[in-house]
């Protein structure tokens, strides 16, 4: 249900009607994306556009005739859902409004969208980073790839060359062309080194990945989020999402690494390796799908903790843009108006039930899996 609200939120709550009829012309304001000012410039009858007071010949409104960001200072500020409201029943704020007259119900619906987007989005990104790194690290370990000193030296030179090219004072296009040429030359050189025999050492892939995880882990989460929010010029959903994802991927990577470590020693995989099935295929077909199931649980709990984290960021005022309305924002707004129970109760319930459902799903998945593993045995 939350997903439904999240997807169709703008269609349910919006101050623009689906369609309206005025002076014989029919408009579809919600779908056409035309702005209020433009409408009133074209058709003086609209001026200034106020969907509520203009008398239309016929109108079909959204079920909740408010946008989550719509401010109504004149008649709608700070209304209690149970008290009398100076509005007709059609325009009643069913869950009340905040101090600026923003409709709580519209904010709640928007909140579904934002919370799910942040929760799922950040964890998906965390998975996307965590799974490849974790699985590759576990599968290849430290000594699987062997690399000669010459190759190491050469790659160092290539890296250095790329840096040099980056600092050349040409336009970006020319830089890219030079870089491509340089890389082609480097590739040929790599082919050449195959003919020179030298001592090989194991490439410490696992150690590298684990170090990366330790590095991310050893910065306080707050530091990472603050630095990211400060560095990124635009502060929006995406920045918050990326920040949370950056904090979460090590957990994912660690889980998957531990799982694959266990499975890689199994005879099943060993025989697959003997059959010369390509590594990538083994990883993607046989290891990751099975290792993914335990990770699934931490994914689901991760989603809920991401939603909580986002609301805490809203509290500190360092998260989403101020016109954004969501559960955490409503809750943190309620801190200064504690008498207004409707600012507390509804978003609190929303968070609670979302987390509860996620938790239940998590438990179900876990049970299903345990049963499944019994059956396999």
């Amino acid at each position, binding site marked *: 249900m939350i997903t439904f609200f999240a997807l169709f939120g703008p269609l349910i709550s919006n101050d623009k009607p689906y369609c309206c009829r005025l002076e014989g012309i029919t408009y579809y304001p919600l779908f056409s994306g035309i702005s*209020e*000012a433009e409408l009133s410039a074209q058709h003086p009858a609209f001026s200034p556009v106020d969907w509520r007071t203009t008398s239309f010949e016929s109108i079909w409104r959204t079920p909740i005739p408010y946008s989550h960001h719509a401010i109504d200072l004149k008649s709608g500020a700070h209304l209690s859902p149970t008290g009398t409201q100076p509005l007709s029943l059609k325009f009643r704020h069913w869950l009340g409004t905040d101090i600026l007259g923003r409709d709580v119900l519209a904010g709640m619906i928007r909140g579904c969208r934002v919370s799910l987007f942040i929760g799922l989005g950040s964890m998906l990104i965390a998975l996307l980073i965590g799974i490849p790194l974790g699985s590759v690290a576990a599968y290849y370990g430290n000594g699987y790839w062997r690399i000669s000193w010459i190759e190491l030296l050469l790659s160092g030179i290539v890296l250095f060359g790329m840096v040099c090219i980056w600092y050349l004072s040409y336009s970006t296009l020319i830089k890219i062309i030079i870089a491509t040429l340089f890389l082609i030359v480097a590739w040929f050189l790599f082919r050449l080194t195959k003919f020179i025999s030298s001592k090989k050492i194991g490439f410490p892939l696992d150690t590298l990945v684990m170090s990366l995880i330790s590095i991310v882990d050893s910065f306080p989460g707050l530091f990472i989020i603050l630095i990211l929010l400060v560095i990124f010029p635009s502060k929006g959903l995406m920045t918050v999402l990326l920040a949370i994802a950056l904090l979460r991927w090590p957990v994912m990577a660690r889980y998957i690494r531990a799982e694959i470590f266990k499975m890689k020693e199994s005879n099943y995989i060993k025989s697959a390796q003997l059959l010369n099935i390509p590594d990538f295929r083994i990883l993607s077909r046989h290891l990751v799908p099975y290792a993914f199931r335990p990770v699934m649980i931490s994914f689901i709990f991760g989603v809920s903790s991401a939603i909580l984290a986002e609301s805490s960021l809203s509290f500190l*005022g360092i998260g989403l843009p101020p016109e954004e309305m969501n559960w955490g924002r409503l809750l943190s707004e309620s801190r200064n108006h504690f008498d207004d129970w409707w600012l507390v109760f509804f978003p609190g319930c929303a968070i609670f039930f979302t987390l509860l459902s996620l938790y239940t799903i998590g438990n179900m998945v876990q049970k299903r899996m345990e049963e499944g593993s019994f059956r396999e045995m």
Partner: protein
Amino acid sequence: MVRKGIQHIILTTSLLLLALSSCKTGIETSTPLVVNVRIAQEPETLNPLFSKSSFATQIESLILLPVAEYDPVSLKLSPLLITEIPTEQKVSEGKHSGGSMYTLHFRPEATWTDGSPVTAEDYLFTIKSVYNPYVNASSMRGFFGFISEIQTDPKDAKKVTVFIDSTYILPLDVITNFQLFPANVYDPKNIMTGFTLEELRDPNKKWTAEQDTLLKQFAESFESPHFGREMVMGAGPYELDNWTTGEFIRLKRKSNYWGDKISNPPLLVQGYPTEINYRFYGDAATAEAALKSGVVDVMGDVSASTFIKMKNDPQWADKFQFASPALLQMNYLLLNNHKPILADKRIRQALAYCLDYDGIMKNVLQGLGQRTVGPIHPTKRYYDKDLKPIQQDINKSIALIKAAGWKDTNGNGIPDKIIDGKLQELSISIKITNQEEGKAIANILKENAKKAGIDINIEVLETSQFNDARRQNNFDIEPMRMRSLPTLDDPYATWHSQSDKPGGNNVSGFHSMAADSVINEIRTDASEKERDIDYHSLQEILYEEQPVIFLYVPLERIIVSKKFEFLSSSRKPGYFENLFKRAS
């Protein structure tokens, strides 16, 4: 078993504690007067030259008295350390010919904490310390730059003569409105006496190695936390007793204080409470709870909704007094007139007309504010009452935008126009900090402007980035506050085109020949009447041009426990904790 034991311990301690805390409250009623003040942020230092927050100034002025300060009630400069406010004497000969001369006489009773008298040497020391090249006080240097020379009298240690060559509208402020340091405390080695003010102010002066180390040595010790947090002393009624980082600052009333011995002491020289505790509560909700539970007796800058709510609640109205004096401050939206979109007067006007002022006054301020039309505070005599504050009129905004040639040609819902050969969308960003009021106004502006077709982006920035953006002229709109002095306004710094330069105060980039000439006249007008007329015409020009959008004069919201009698004032912070008396 162990768990049970722990439970026992917890229980007994909590019981013990309840007993203890009740004891404490029992004593408090019979002990001398203690005032607990909430401040939102811990000051960095209590050295007035380096402290930046207004909370620090609030505390400092109780410890280190200014030479003269604006009286909380009369709002006139009242002599604190001097016997009277000096009068201007024209100098007709000598090197200061054409300038003016002021003679200050320090009060014969005035002494520092150790009992030594406040003298002209201390005055000179304070200014010299500002000009020590290694002391970081560039803003104060600009302030004292108007002083041409200071002469002390070898016969009368309490007399000092100050010369000002240039004409400046507020000479008395420069001469007297700053806090005085006791030279023997802050410079125990008497380093600064070895230098003359003239030498220190000469930027081309080459110091010898020895002098250089001395200057550095002084600067280092002067800026050290020792003089900022431990050894804070002055001629004020209070001394620093305890500063626990992150928790509180406690001031104690001096026992042998000179202010007690003079007849008719000015308000700011007096001090009734024996102890003032400044408690740091950053979070507003916590501070509110602290106020309600009696941990804190005074709270300023209460949010408007809390203020109204508590005032209307009989439970709290019985326990607290509520004061809402009008502050000498104006809130406005700073517009960047350098930006091509906002350089057009019509767009600025359109923005001004689209704002829902009534809604802001009613909801954001809860009615605790007053509209204003220009940079002149409404309480001033020369405030132009004929100008009516702008009211919301979306139709007018739309018309103005249309008249300015903006039209949505590419069908994205935002009007656009070709400026300097490039297609510009009518899209403006507003930069705000993380303050509730700013956020609310930005949100309202965004919603209102959308109706008129203007697209507003809200960017929340850290305070430092917010200030950086303004400094680098990299902003469209920023909500700002403008402080107003109780004396005459000098519009030169904020509105004259000459002040629109890097580091200048005309940040809006407003240029107008008419305004320039009016400002120049204000600065040189001889009679009050002429000046009033010029002030009026300046307000009219600014009203017409809307270089910035003036919003309102907020009323301060102060809640004080009924245990005290207090005085509210339109000077920040609105209350004066040294004047608190026990309620009769």
